[in-house]
């Protein structure tokens, strides 16, 4: 029963993915300025023939419908076109940098959730205590603060003033472990290169905190209000009447109910994570696809921008799908 619903959800995302791809395509085609001109702008004066040849190569002389088909076909094959600036396939550029971004995103989510959920629970259990007020004030601040600023403040503090943590990059030059998966921390473990692991982690801390902060703030608030709701419910009183310890009541009975809305919110926050990603990668010079995109924007390297935007959008759709599925599975009421 439930699994039918899950399947439904999965199928529903296909039209959206398609829509995303088509939107990106059309937006790119309607860019003011001819991509060929942009490319040629670098080379100086070129003959008309050369331009016409290039047009044919990039299939820009064919009707729009055909171009769309080529585009979608290429997409299915994983071919996202070629970078105008770096003369490499966009797909490869993205693949090289994707692990960096994923590592950062995972670290940020981990930090955010590991911090926010306990804080939310404790704030709810000890409502109106100093802990509660302080944590809610801090999370309010977290929501009002732009990611780029938090990053800069952290750098100012921890790198400039205190010198504890490095400012930019993923790992100190020369310390990179042999590349197996592309995830530095993992690679370090796999090759037994603990110095690399340590260094990579040190580089990961500030960006992860910066990226995870807004998410943590919102998750903490939602967890708190959800817990407060749940703790007021009758079944909590019953749990106590059964003779359960307070700990058991809170973490076994109440939390499972309270987490249901938290999961949905966490999913929405993933969007924030993806968006903030570009900014954080810029601030910390993190070599991921966010930085790639920003650089490409300035270089007017449209195929790259297009490719990255699409990856982001599809990831977002995918993440929402996962959240949707998890929600359907967790909530026992959704069986009928």
């Amino acid at each position: 029963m439930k699994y039918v619903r899950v399947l439904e959800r999965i199928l529903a995302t296909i039209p959206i993915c398609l829509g995303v791809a088509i939107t990106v395509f059309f937006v790119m085609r309607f860019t003011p300025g001819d991509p060929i001109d942009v490319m040629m702008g670098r080379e100086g004066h070129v003959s008309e023939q050369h331009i016409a040849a290039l047009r044919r190569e990039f299939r820009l002389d064919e009707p729009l419908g055909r171009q769309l088909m080529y585009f979608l076909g290429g997409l299915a094959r994983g071919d996202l076109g070629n970078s105008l600036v770096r003369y490499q396939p966009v797909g490869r550029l993205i693949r090289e940098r994707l692990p960096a971004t994923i590592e950062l995103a995972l670290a940020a989510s981990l930090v955010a959730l590991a911090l926010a959920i306990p804080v939310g629970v404790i704030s709810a259990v000890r409502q109106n205590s100093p802990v509660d007020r302080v944590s809610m004030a801090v999370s309010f601040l977290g929501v009002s603060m732009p990611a780029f600023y938090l990053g800069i403040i952290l750098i100012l503090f921890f790198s400039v003033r205190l010198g504890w943590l490095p400012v930019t990059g993923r790992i100190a030059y020369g310390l990179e472990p042999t590349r197996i998966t592309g995830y530095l921390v993992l690679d370090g473990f796999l090759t037994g290169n603990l110095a690399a692991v340590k260094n990579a982690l040190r580089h990961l801390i500030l960006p992860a905190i910066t990226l995870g902060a807004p998410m943590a703030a919102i998750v903490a608030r939602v967890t708190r209000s959800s817990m407060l709701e749940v703790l007021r419910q009758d079944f909590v009183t019953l749990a106590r009447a059964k003779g359960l310890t307070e700990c058991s009541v809170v973490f076994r009975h109440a939390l499972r109910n309270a987490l249901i809305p938290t999961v949905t919110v966490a999913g929405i926050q993933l969007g924030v994570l993806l968006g903030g990603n570009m900014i954080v990668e810029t601030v910390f010079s993190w070599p991921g696809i966010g930085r790639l995109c920003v650089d490409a924007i300035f270089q007017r390297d449209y195929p790259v921008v297009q490719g990255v935007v699409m990856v982001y959008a599809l990831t977002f759709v995918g993440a929402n799908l996962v959240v949707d599925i998890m929600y359907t599975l967790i909530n026992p009421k959704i069986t009928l």
Partner: protein
Amino acid sequence: MLEISNLNTHFPTSRGLVKAVAGVDFLLEPGRIVGLVGESGCGKSMTLLSILRLVPYPGRLSGQIWFEGRDLLQESPAAMRRVRGRAIAMVFQDPMTTLNPVFRVGEQIRESLRIHGLVGRAPARAQREMVLSLMEEVGIPSPSARYHQYPHEFSGGMQQRALMAIALACQPKVLLADEPTTALDVTIQAQILDLLRHINRQRKTAMVLVTHDLAVASEFCHEIAVMYAGRLVEIGPTREVIYHPAHPYTRGLLGSIPRITRERARLSPIPGNVPDLAGLAATCAFAPRCAEALPRCREEDPGLCDAGPGHTARCLRLKGGG
């Protein structure tokens, strides 16, 4: 068995001290069923919660609750937890909201057994068997199928039975029932009451049944205690209280019950409203609404006065002289 002595449950609020339960005394003997009746807000549910010390923040308890030779109000939290669900169990009003929606019913019943050590290291099968027999006892049909279901898949009556299974799991000596039938249809009500009666006879479980329905109380309980504005205003054997009500409030309650058999007449409610529980004085709380009030009633607190064998009421008129 359970002796409550001068129980007070106070809530400090911005409007003053709310005395939800004020100076309640009563005695519950083994195997007896006492009905606690009164309007909404009179403190009956709060009394039950106070016995188990489940009063929500910022409530404060004072007085004594003697159970098995110990004063429950002096016990440590750990000791209280051993009493709750084990020696004294509670059944709540609305079963839909009282069962945890994310856990299966069987599991919730098993939990009671587990935490009070009644399963020990018995294998999962044996534990399941214990739960199933409990479910059978409370009358849940096809227990083995129902074991794995969630609360929202049960009907209202079955949910209430499940709650009772949870309460009875550890063979408590006292069962506190807070309006167990109010949220149910009349036919199911009768079934649940039968079940309670069966348990009382079979296991000799003493019960305190809270209800606002005098009819249910009169049918079911051995003794009736009437509460008003947080105080106990009358207590005595059922027949005595119903046929010879000693307190004007009780008389008013009985008089306001619409009867089908009599000739048509207007309903006679008790005039006025329940007083605000904040900052009540130590006089008779019912005096403002009482048709038989004396000037003295607004100055003194009556205290429980004799009104017959085993029957007392909080009314100055009973103190001899009118």
